[in-house]
């Protein structure tokens, strides 16, 4: 009897025997969720171009995915992705990067491309810390946490809700899940891939080594259980008071709408230019 093989191993670059993530890191769960989405859609990795920035989450596609991958400078993957999509309109361009990369240094590119409703899928893997560099405070780190650059505790108000900011900027599809919801995450990724427009998925993902230890959490299992406990489906969140919602993570597909997609508008613009109409 022939041996069982993992259905997603064929998507992993042959020269990469294992991932570089820490034990228990949520990034690995996200990596699987993405590849499972692609597998379930019956698509090939050659239908995609993946773009990532700097940070642990950026190592989800690079070098793991056996596909065209662009691993860029810090904060800028969405800007590079813009150019790739302009040049390869028939490919699905997916950005996978972290909260520090996409929301701090890269915040403006996130906001502007959400506004443009440019046809990109962007996964923001939010672990609440700058993990790669040894655990510094991020704009998503809760107040009071001691990190290497905030040894007396963070004193900044963190982002309460990145997804809300992206919705306000104009993205036409926004979802949030955690690594406690890999199946739901896969479902939303499939949706994002198949639709036109700026599709943003925020994924809360555990960083047991850099964030967990600093926040007094004891490992991946505890952190995932914590996500599960704190998660609240969006449709139920409306029933709770702001007090009851404090500390909860609202998950689900938060926004889905039709609006002009930028690259389609570019095609119309070209038609106007060629037709001599200004």
């Amino acid at each position, binding site marked *: *009897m*022939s*041996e*069982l*093989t*993992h*259905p*997603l*191993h064929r998507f*992993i670059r042959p020269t990469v*025997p*294992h*991932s570089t*993530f*820490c*034990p*228990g*890191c*949520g*990034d*690995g*769960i996200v*990596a*699987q*969720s993405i590849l*499972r989405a692609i*597998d379930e859609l019956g698509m090939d990795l050659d239908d995609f171009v993946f773009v990532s920035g700097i940070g642990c989450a950026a190592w989800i596609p690079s070098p793991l995915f056996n596909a065209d991958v662009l691993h860029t400078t810090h904060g800028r993957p969405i800007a590079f992705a813009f150019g790739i999509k302009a040049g390869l309109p028939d490919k699905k361009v997916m950005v996978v990067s972290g909260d520090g990369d996409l929301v701090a240094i890269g915040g403006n590119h996130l906001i502007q491309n959400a506004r443009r409703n440019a046809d990109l899928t962007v996964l923001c893997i939010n672990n609440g810390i700058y993990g790669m560099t040894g655990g510094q405070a991020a704009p998503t780190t809760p107040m009071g946490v001691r990190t290497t650059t905030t040894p007396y505790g963070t004193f900044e108000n963190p982002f309460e809700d990145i997804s809300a900011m992206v919705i306000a900027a104009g993205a036409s599809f926004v979802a949030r899940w955690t690594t406690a919801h*890999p*199946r739901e995450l896969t479902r939303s990724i499939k949706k994002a891939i198949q639709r036109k427009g700026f599709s943003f998925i925020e994924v809360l993902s555990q960083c047991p080594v850099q964030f967990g230890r600093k926040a007094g959490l004891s*490992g*991946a*299992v505890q952190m*995932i*259980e914590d996500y599960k406990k704190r998660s609240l489906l969006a449709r139920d969140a409306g029933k709770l008071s702001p007090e009851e919602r404090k500390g909860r993570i609202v998950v689900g597909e938060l926004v889905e709408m039709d609006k002009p997609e930028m690259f389609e508008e570019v095609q119309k613009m070209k038609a106007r230019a060629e037709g001599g109409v200004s």
Partner: protein
Amino acid sequence: MQIRIYPERCKGVEECGLCLHVCKKQVFKPSEGLNLRGYRPPEIENEKACTACENCMIFCPDFALVVGGKKGKRGGPA
């Protein structure tokens, strides 16, 4: 129900341990020995109890577990 573990991909039940935690049927236990990178992979203790829920496969950050035998899965026997 078939389960295959890739022990050399695993990062250990002590440091990770997600598979043991998400399995509702206690199919796994820690193995006696360590893999080549010094991690302790899981071992199958009670395969008959497995319901092919696939939690272990889906939650493993290292692609180190596959569960077969479910309806027409792409990952079935090669």
